């Protein structure tokens, strides 16, 4: 029983960073139509920024804020400089993002080499409750993720901006005629999604060492979460992240351990076959201006 409960606790923390990256992808892909496969590299840059700040004497909180802001700025520059030019041809944006993966990885390697980077655990300690080990830093990561998810959810579903954003997804032309600055919203969503990746990177390096190659591993999971949950659906991304986290935990615990990832992706295939728009339904993507 202890082991089973431990696996459930593990699943929550496994899910947290995936949910953050998945929400970023689901917003950008689902609401703007930009397929950014370099989103994992944004996470990596966030982790590296945190590492740079912490290894130069800054605290973790400063590193986390710096990561969020820097990756947000990076998102702004890349959206304005590259992706904006491909909105009419999403496939070009997709190919550009593949190129960006290599460019961003090699930029980091050029200046800070390709070795693992880690920071001292910002919060050490393990709580033991009924034989279950709860790692304090992981609990904090789960908490931060929950807060960010709540803010994002209410921002999209309840705020005036969220309403305008959803209107522009439904019909960009009509939304424009109604005075919604669609292009600016696209930039805003891209920046927000990028900031979530920066946050994910900062939280990730608080848990594990990272390398310049971590992004490609994470981004596949992020896209799985976005698709399983339903494109553009924040609640869907949370449910999908939890489902994948649970799948990881339980399959590692009770299935063939080397098949852990295979179970998760088999589940993704099954869900997409049965529910092509994801578990909670999503957008079919925005219509081009």
């Amino acid at each position, binding site marked *: 029983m202890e*082991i089973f409960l*431990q*696996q459930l606790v*593990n*699943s929550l*923390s*496994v899910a947290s960073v995936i949910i953050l990256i998945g929400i970023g992808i689901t917003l950008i892909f689902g609401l703007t139509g930009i397929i950014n496969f370099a989103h994992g590299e944004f996470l990596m840059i966030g982790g590296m920024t945190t590492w740079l700040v912490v290894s130069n004497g800054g605290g973790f909180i400063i590193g986390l804020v710096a990561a969020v802001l820097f990756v947000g700025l990076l998102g702004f520059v890349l959206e304005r400089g590259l992706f904006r030019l491909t909105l009419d041809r999403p496939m070009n944006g997709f190919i550009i993002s593949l190129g960006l993966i290599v460019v961003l990885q090699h930029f980091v*390697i050029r200046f800070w*080499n*390709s*070795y*693992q980077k880690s920071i001292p655990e910002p919060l050490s300690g*393990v709580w033991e409750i009924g034989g279950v*080990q709860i*790692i304090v830093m992981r609990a904090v990561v789960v908490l931060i993720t929950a807060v960010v998810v709540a803010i994002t959810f209410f921002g999209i579903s309840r705020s005036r901006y969220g309403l305008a954003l959803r209107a522009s997804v439904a019909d960009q032309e009509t939304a424009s005629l109604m005075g919604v600055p669609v292009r600016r919203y696209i930039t805003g969503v891209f920046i927000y999604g990028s900031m979530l990746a920066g946050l994910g990177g900062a939280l*990730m390096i608080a*848990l*594990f*060492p*990272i*390398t*310049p*190659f*971590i992004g490609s*591993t994470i981004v596949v999971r992020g896209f799985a979460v976005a698709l399983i949950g339903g494109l553009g659906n924040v609640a869907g991304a949370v449910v999908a992240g939890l489902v994948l986290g649970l799948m*990881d*935990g*339980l*399959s*590692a*615990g*009770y299935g063939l*351990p*080397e*098949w*852990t*990832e295979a179970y998760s992706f088999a589940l993704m295939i099954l869900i997409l076959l049965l529910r092509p728009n994801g578990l909670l339904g999503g957008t079919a993507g925005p219509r081009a201006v």
Partner: protein
Amino acid sequence: MKFWQFCAIAGSALFAASAQPAAADDDTIKIGVVAAQTGAFVSAGNTIGAGVTLAVKEINDAGGVKIGGKSRKIQLENRDDRTDVNVAIAAGRELVNDIGVAALYGTESHDFSVSMTKITGPAKVLQFTGNSSLGAILTKESVAPGAPLHYTFQSEPPEFQRSGSTARGVLKLLGKEIGAPLKNAVVFVADDATGQYLSEHYVKALEANGQHVDLIKYPPNTTDFTPLLTRAKGLNPDTVHFWYNGDVTLVAFPQAVQLKVAKGYFLFGVDPGVWADRKLVSTAPVTLSCVPMCWGAPPTPEAKAYFDRYFAAGAVKGVQSSVSLLYYDYMHWYAKAIEESGSTDPDTVVAQIEKMKYQGVVSKAPLYFDNRHRVSFATEVCLVKPNTSDQFECAVEEPPTEPPAGDNGG
């Protein structure tokens, strides 16, 4: 001749010259390294280039390789395989076919090295590679003159020997520290070609030392090991043995300590030097092993002097820096074989290496290749005193002469 005709002929000549493989320069001996400078195996791969580079510098600074009263400098060509077998093969082809190297060092990945022999063998290029999985294909017949692997040398001991000496040393040190008999072990290893090969032998070695062993293979690229470590905890192990990528091990190990998976741990491929350098600390007893001698706790003054020179030359302090020693020694050995045979002819050099005993830094006893082109030497194992970053108790374990029951001796 008209001007345009002259230009066309001159241009064609220049193009033809540039398209030719680099002509052998009598004043240099070209040597290649193919190893990961980036990617998952950078910590192991980087040491190959750095170790060979240091040896080449020392040889060249001493005047070069002396053949018949004439000295020839060594020209080193380093290539990054990016931990990608296709890149490794492309780099190998370039070095062998285009650059015309006489010997090749690397790679760090077992399956890559085996693939590389298909390039070096037909071109009569000597290949020195540490990967013990070569043992599966190196036989008396395959290394005989004229056979496909005549120019291939395995620079690490057969895997049953390394696993045997490692398992014995680890259990001895952990048993003493924990103060209770060790019976149950979990081997935690990456589910890739190298991990599968290595764990096959290490499990047998632990069983030969009285352990009940459970094997848990994790998917490559795993970063969150808690689900699999929780599974391991459910098996009630006395010890968990992490094989084989040191970088990955240093991600998984702290998670194991936080979850209190076992009483003691073994981390393969993590030098005591990196433990001290990163100021790592563990509440649980931990053992580390090095192939062949540990950076951070070298058992001989020669090894200590080597690591001082190695890092002074600018090498990165990676988790597996000790691996560099192998390639440093084998570069010097190769140069000495050329000097003693008085020739760079590959068949002559191979014949010379086969009959040599070489005293380098790797081993207290002189090294020699057996009739399957394999070497044998001891493994150093160190215990990290709990709650310390720089207190180590080390022992040098000699390899077993025979494989344990069920081990095919690869």
